[in-house]
């Protein structure tokens, strides 16, 4: 029997700009809701209804779950969906007479958008209640991650800041889901020696680890990552199986690269006449994705073939078989090396499925259904594995991540190294403020709480990652400067023992995250 731990990480940075009627980066959330989170939930609910025996673990990051439960963003998502549905109706008419090859897909997109919106409304606009129900049925293990998905190894010299990220992540999970998380997704698999102690002190029992962490460990491994690792702190680590995940994740040969699958980039927002798409793109006339995409990947050519849903679904079926075949084959090889019931830990960004790889949700559904009808596979969760009390590998690991090169190169390079000078200083100053003002209530307490909120938001791994990738760099830099600048407003004012009330009210309004934060989280353990 091969045991599979499917661990999905759903994360987006906190983006909320109600000061604008529409804000481009808020579409990150809306696209993910419509193309990944709601379709994923609907698929899992379908499996549950059909009596399929499945299990998986999902991490909703605190920033994402805050946005998913924010009434203002929920309202804006409904507007976004109404726009998509309106465009879908126009597309249905247009493709009945021109580009008729796209007609079926236009109908498909429209119907999917209507179903997604319907499900969204039925859940009281909070999709997390749907995932929570599945959790209560023991189908899903819910876990959390660092408060703003900070890449923790770069902050290891600031244990108070790391602890604040961990504690606030767990607290937010508890506030939103009503119970403590036992699993903690290490942002970008970023691990360093000593991190486990802090996680255990906060009540965490397991985390996921980068695939190379076992072969490069300080100790000799026996199970090579096919059984849980027990770290010196007692924390369990589940090692990502690169061999199996790369079947999906590889940019060269992964299933999503198949030429029959839908192309991510060719979108009518970019090629239909401006007058037609204007209401659905960004003002003034910035062409963006509308979600209506009718072409297949086809190959490295601009001359893309029209997408065929039937062909794509045939490929999904083949890829499901191929995936399980590869797991089984690996299972034989591992069994012959004396390891029975190997555990394959499959860690993915959730948004890959549905949004980035359009057919990804159907792929997951196929894998879960076929695994259930076979005696060779069982999907489980890390917490279930821990409760089985089976064999473990006791190891001391080196620093590692799942980023390029396996270390911190993505978050520390020529494009982003300048940020740490400012963030480290802000952490030192936050620690200083907790020492100088150890017991502030009411207004000063709120002021200090806002400073710690801004600091956590500045620590998000998304900003250096975007700078490294060279994508929305302007936005990332502005966000970072804005959070650190806001932090400095508090620091300067508190140094003069004053509170800027008007500023505070505006700042609290603009970032409605971590309502239960306590600035004393940043108390240095050395004090």
């Amino acid at each position, binding site marked *: 029997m091969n045991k599979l731990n499917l661990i999905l990480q759903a994360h987006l940075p906190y983006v909320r700009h109600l000061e604008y009627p529409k804000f481009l980066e808020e579409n990150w959330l809306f696209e993910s809701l419509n193309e990944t989170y709601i379709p994923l939930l609907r698929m899992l609910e379908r499996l549950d209804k059909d009596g399929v025996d499945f299990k998986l673990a999902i991490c909703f990051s605190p920033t994402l779950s805050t946005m998913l439960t924010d009434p203002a963003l929920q309202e804006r998502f409904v507007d976004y969906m109404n726009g998509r549905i309106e465009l879908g109706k126009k597309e249905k008419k247009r493709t009945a007479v021109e580009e008729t090859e796209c007609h079926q897909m236009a109908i498909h997109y429209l119907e999917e958008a209507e179903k997604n919106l319907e499900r969204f409304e039925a859940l009281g606009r909070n999709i997390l209640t749907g995932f929570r129900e599945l959790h209560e049925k023991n189908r899903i293990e819910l876990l959390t991650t660092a408060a703003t998905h900070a890449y923790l190894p770069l902050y290891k010299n600031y244990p108070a800041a790391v602890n604040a990220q961990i504690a606030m992540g767990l607290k937010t999970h508890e506030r939103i889901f009503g119970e403590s998380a036992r699993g903690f997704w290490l942002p970008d698999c970023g691990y360093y020696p000593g991190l486990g102690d802090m996680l255990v002190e906060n009540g965490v029992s397991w985390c996921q680890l980068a695939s190379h962490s076992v072969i490069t460990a300080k100790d000799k491994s026996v199970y090579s990552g*096919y059984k849980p690792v027990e770290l010196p702190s007692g924390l369990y680590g589940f090692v990502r199986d*690169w061999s199996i995940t*790369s079947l999906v994740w590889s940019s060269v040969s992964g299933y999503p690269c198949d030429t029959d699958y839908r192309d991510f980039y060719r979108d009518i927002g970019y090629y239909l006449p401006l007058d037609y798409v204007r209401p659905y793109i*960004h003002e003034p006339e*910035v062409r963006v994705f509308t979600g209506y995409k009718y072409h297949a990947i086809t190959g490295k050519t601009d001359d893309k073939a029209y997408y065929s849903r039937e062909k794509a679904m045939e490929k999904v079926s083949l890829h499901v078989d191929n995936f399980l075949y590869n797991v089984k084959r690996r299972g034989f090889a591992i069994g012959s090396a004396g390891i029975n019931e190997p555990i394959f830990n499959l860690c993915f960004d959730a948004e890959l499925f549905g949004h980035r790889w359009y057919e990804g949700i159907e792929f997951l559904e196929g894998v879960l259904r076929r695994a259930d009808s076979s005696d060779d596979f069982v999907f489980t969760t890390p917490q279930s594995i821990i409760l089985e009390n089976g064999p473990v590998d006791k190891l001391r690991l080196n620093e590692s991540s799942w980023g390029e090169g*396996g270390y911190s190169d993505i978050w520390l390079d020529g494009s982003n*190294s300048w940020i740490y000078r400012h963030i480290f200083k802000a952490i030192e100053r936050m620690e200083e403020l907790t020492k100088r003002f150890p017991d502030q209530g009411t207004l000063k307490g709120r002021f200090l709480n806002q400073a710690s909120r801004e600091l956590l938001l500045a620590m998000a791994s998304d900003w250096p990652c975007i700078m490294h990738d060279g994508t*929305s760099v302007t936005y990332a830099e502005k966000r970072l*400067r804005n959070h650190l600048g806001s932090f400095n407003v508090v620091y300067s004012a508190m140094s003069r023992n004053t509170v800027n009330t008007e500023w505070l009210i505006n700042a609290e309004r603009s970032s409605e995250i971590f309502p239960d934060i306590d600035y004393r989280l940043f108390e240095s353990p050395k004090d």
Partner: protein
Amino acid sequence: MILVNVDSLSVYELRTIAEQEGIEGAEALSREEIISLLEERYEDYGENADPKDLNLRYMSGLTDYRDISKYVENPPGVEELPEVYPDTEIHLIKKNGSWLYAFWSISPNDSDRLQDGRESIVLSVTIENNGAREEYDVPVSYSDTEWNIGIPYGRGFCCVSLDAVSPDGEKTVLSVSEPEELTDSYWLSHPDEMKYSDSLYRLYLTLITTREGDLVDNPVVRDIVNLFRKEDTKDE
């Protein structure tokens, strides 16, 4: 990729980078030749980077190729970040198993005082590896703020300090970093056991190798695998 300090790296460090970048024969090249080749290589990366690589994190998938940053509205600004902070301090962070990144600041007061006294500044590097200690100084200018430090694998640590050196050679420590642990891998320090660990080695490879036979992207893994292969060849 940190490029800012390529000009100020030692020949040894440049050769290591060149090797990592796949430049052959770097041992025989001069410092200027290596810098020139590395610059060409980095330019290539910039031109050939494929923005549609699925391996880029999801965030990139949302934002790449749009080229719309110029249209993005400014979030309401509050304060500019300061150019300098009023403290003299040094930090050391691990970039990867072979490189550390040091950055520092000298407070305006300290800077004025030291320059009035005609004192120079050095970055003092200490590496302790398997009980052996190596110490060296890198002269830096008052306008320098960062440096990359090459480190070996092993059991030990590296730390750096920012020191002022008076005209008569007397050193004063201005600030010391926290130590950074070196990468200490069992297999790098036990190659003698490799020949008895063939089945374990194959098991390791099973987890970290793609269907096409490509290893997970990590230099320590590559070094370990090369050692195992060397042991295999010895047996033959």
